[in-house]
């Protein structure tokens, strides 16, 4: 038997608790970026979002939702105006980007069970795909919002470009939430049934059905604990009122997004190597 002095292409050894080597993890993740786009595309196709009526539903669904909530606001307050409706649609659509990331993320890892049991790849690809899917579903609603805004005669302003950094912060937050919840779901499979209560609570605590200016100072003080509050507040200021966002809100929103993203990624990455034995 000829023994060769070649170097192994792969070495597998016991791992210490904590993070995997981040550079090689990132390389493996980056080399599989086509998986993420392809996976999102086929998931969307699977839900018929490539057909005319599928896309119509993508737009109709948030429109109907905003209509229902607007009805609620009108009944509770007794009166309303177009500005309020524009605010409601703007914030509701961004809220649904985050909440769709959560509901898509919760089954991301457990739904990929077969793939996880049979191939070695960075598991974080699965929750990332869930966020990309939520983003694909968000873009048409953004267009709908801009149309509503124009039709109702809300003036445009260059400050609206602040929406781009706010959207980026929202994406970091969505990624963090999807990564965290997908990991928790491996250990507690019934977490999905608690999600509707969680998202509903966050919705009512966030400035969607009302504007932050209508809240009392006492309540506002506690809203620093809601990661979505500064985000949705800034979003409304920028896109509805055409004003620059408050820097303090932006920083709090960014801080929350980074904390959730980093903590979630740490939990996920240090746990993902044992996902395969948890199925």
């Amino acid at each position, binding site marked *: 038997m000829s023994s060769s002095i070649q170097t192994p292409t792969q070495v*597998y050894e016991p791992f210490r608790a904590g993070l995997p080597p981040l550079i090689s993890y990132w390389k493996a993740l980056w080399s*599989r970026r*086509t998986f993420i786009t392809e996976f999102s595309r086929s998931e969307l196709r699977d839900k018929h979002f490539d057909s005319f009526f599928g896309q119509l539903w993508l737009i109709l669904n948030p429109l109907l939702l905003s209509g229902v909530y607007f009805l609620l606001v009108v009944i509770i307050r007794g009166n309303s105006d177009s500005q309020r409706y524009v605010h409601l649609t703007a914030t509701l659509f961004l809220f649904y980007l985050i909440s769709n990331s959560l509901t898509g993320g919760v089954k991301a890892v457990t739904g990929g069970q077969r*793939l996880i*049991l049979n191939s070695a790849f960075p598991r974080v690809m699965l929750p990332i795909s869930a966020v990309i899917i939520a983003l694909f579903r968000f873009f048409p609603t953004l267009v709908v919002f801009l149309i509503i805004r124009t039709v109702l005669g809300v003036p445009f302003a260059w400050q609206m470009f602040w929406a781009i950094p706010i959207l980026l912060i929202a994406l970091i937050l969505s990624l963090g939430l999807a990564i965290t919840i997908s990991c928790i779901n491996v250990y507690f499979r019934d977490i999905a049934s608690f999600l509707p209560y969680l998202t509903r609570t966050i919705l009512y605590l966030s400035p969607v059905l009302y504007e932050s200016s209508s809240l009392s100072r006492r309540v506002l003080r506690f809203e620093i604990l809601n990661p979505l509050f500064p985000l949705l507040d800034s979003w409304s200021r920028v896109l509805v009122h055409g004003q620059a966002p408050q820097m303090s809100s932006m920083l709090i929103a960014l801080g929350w997004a980074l904390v959730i993203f980093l903590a979630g990624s740490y939990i996920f990455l240090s746990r993902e190597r044992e996902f*395969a034995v948890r199925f």
Partner: protein
Amino acid sequence: MNLLSVSKSSKTNEIAVSVRNLGLTYSTSVERRPTIKARAKSLGRGTKHTRVIQALKNVDLDVEYGHVLGVIGSNGAGKSSMMRVIAGIIPPTNGRIEVFGSVSTLLALGVGFNPSMSGRDNVLLGGLAAGMTRDQIEDRFEEIVDFSELGDAIDAPMKTYSSGMYSRLAFSVAATVRPDILIIDEALSTGDAKFKEKSLNRIKELRSDDRALIIVSHAMGVLREICNDIAWLDKGTLVQRGEPNATIDAYQDFLHVKRSAASDEDV
């Protein structure tokens, strides 16, 4: 890792996989489906919610190029766990595994992770997850469809597939990718007699092609025919390793199973 690295001229008898002192212990939940409810119950009763499983103990194993290693053992002997450790899916608890070459990580159940997608999408996604590029997969697509004999069914959702079609596609993917090291877990009993013959021929072809094959199966007749080597695992330890007929005979004596037709049948 690239699955399609060019094979060197002759690698026969060179080491493909070296497993040293491999141990695998893990804890998993007692419940089949761990939930908050179940955890709360076990807290209330003071029972444990996880159990520790020692899947592999002190396994030493070398696989050489140009050889076919069959892995046998009763259910729960640790065969699949060992395959997953070699493929890098589960990290070992003790020991060291060195792999010299590309491993096909498309094990038997690798394709079809999403039953509502078509066979085509599943093959593409499985390949992309394993680190192949889209071009590499598309180049082989024709061959995969031809080999699996699925025809138009490749574009139907995988939930409409029969179990035979399912495993035919899985085997076709694994065998067409042409990795240096191919791991086949319980996928030999695929479909009808005709396809079985065809897949056996493909395995022999790969063997003469200087690749390393590791086959987990309960089909003793097939293993006697195609393997150069058999490793017998029991309760996580390597009991015997050696010449196919002798090892399989010892295993069957151990099981008190006469070499009847039934034990040679594929399960």
